[in-house]
């Protein structure tokens, strides 16, 4: 139970920080995606508590509250990242950093690409693909990769505090 409360608090805080602060840290038009980074670090660290798609669902729902896109869009975007995480977690066990970076890289590309598609499809924004790629998607991916390790360090501390290793189910 504690791990679910801890995960919800952590991911909720990440979404709030993203909206209040991190979304203004721009490079070109890209910004670090803190909810994705925290989610990736959390599912890399906590492999036994809940499947990755569960936490992806949580992030997607929280993200949808803050975004101007329809709430279901957040679920779709992060569900794709959740599927990626499920697939990667079956294949990569050690070292965790490889899984983390693959999740951040692939997840960033997936979420940003899907968001671009949904913004065009649902909101009718005429954004040229090249502009979106150069101005938003690639800068965001790079910023996410740069911030992945620091975020992982903080999340790992949080995970150890929320659920000490000797209390992890199955250990």
């Amino acid at each position, binding site marked *: 139970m504690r791990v679910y409360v801890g995960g919800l608090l952590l991911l909720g805080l990440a*979404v*709030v920080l*993203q*909206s*209040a602060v991190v*979304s*203004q840290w*721009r490079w*070109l*038009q*890209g*910004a670090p*995606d803190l*909810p994705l980074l925290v989610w990736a670090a959390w599912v890399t660290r906590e492999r036994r508590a809940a499947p990755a798609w569960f936490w992806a669902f949580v992030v997607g729902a929280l*993200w949808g509250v*803050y*975004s*101007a*896109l329809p709430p279901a869009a957040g679920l779709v975007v992060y569900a794709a990242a959740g599927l990626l995480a499920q697939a990667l977690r079956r294949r990569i066990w050690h070292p965790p950093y490889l899984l983390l970076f693959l999740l951040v890289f692939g997840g960033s590309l997936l979420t940003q690409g899907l*968001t*671009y598609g949904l*913004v065009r499809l649902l*909101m*009718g*924004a*005429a*954004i040229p693909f090249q*502009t*979106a790629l150069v*101005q*938003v998607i690639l800068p*965001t991916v790079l910023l996410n990769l740069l911030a992945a390790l620091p975020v992982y360090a903080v999340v790992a501390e949080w995970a150890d505090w929320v659920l000490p290793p000797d209390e992890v189910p199955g250990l």
Partner: protein
Amino acid sequence: MRVRSLPSWLIVALLLTGLLLLAWGGYLAPVVRLVSAPVLQAQSAVVRYVTAVRDYLRTPTDVQALRRRNQELEAQVAELQTQIALLQQQVADLSLYAALLDFARAHPEHEYKTAQVIGRDPSPFLHYIIINLGSDDGIRPGMPVVSAQGLVGQVVAVIPRAARVRLITDPTSRVSVRVLPSNTEALLVGSVTGDLSLDLVPLDATINPGDLVVTAGLGGAYPPNILVGQVLSTRRLAHALFQEVAVQPATPFADLRLVLVIVNFRPVDIAPLIPTPGATTP
């Protein structure tokens, strides 16, 4: 007859008195100098050693007291620094409020409510902000939002204690505007990069860099004559139907902290008036 001898104490007293008188008279100066030198040296040595011992014994107490005092002063400095930061923040807020008040005074035809920007859209593709006023404060969808400098956007969604505002820089934003002094009407369009441009500007329209762009009021979404920005550059392409006009927004969207919501403006929904293909008129 036997002469009585003087008492010894009297002899000593007389002798001392004599010596004192001689000393006061300055006759014994060489002797005093000779005698006092070793005495003073000895006294100085005693005082030096006693002071050293006393300092040695008192030093730990002094260090502890100094450390305690240092901690008190450091805490005081930290508290004062916090107060300075808060005061600087209040000064900055005050100047913002003053600028908003100036804007409200310059446009007395509207009623305003001041709102704080508390969030932005988490997606970099969308240019939306979240403000701390909602339906409980009388905010309704469609209300225009301005800053001290000019137009910001429009309220698009409301919950009891917050509202979402679409900025004019959003890629989906369209604002009917007028360019002054030529009075050319055009459509202001946002973009994912935050750049503003004018659409539907005829090739023969006279527009120059520096011209002002204000809301036209057409379409009923925004009240007229709110400053939007200035023309940055124009370009005429031979094969194009319209000019390309870049606009520098008046509002600094990156530093947006406080905004005004125009609460007495009712947007007009003209969608039913727009003819759709296949529709028949009665």
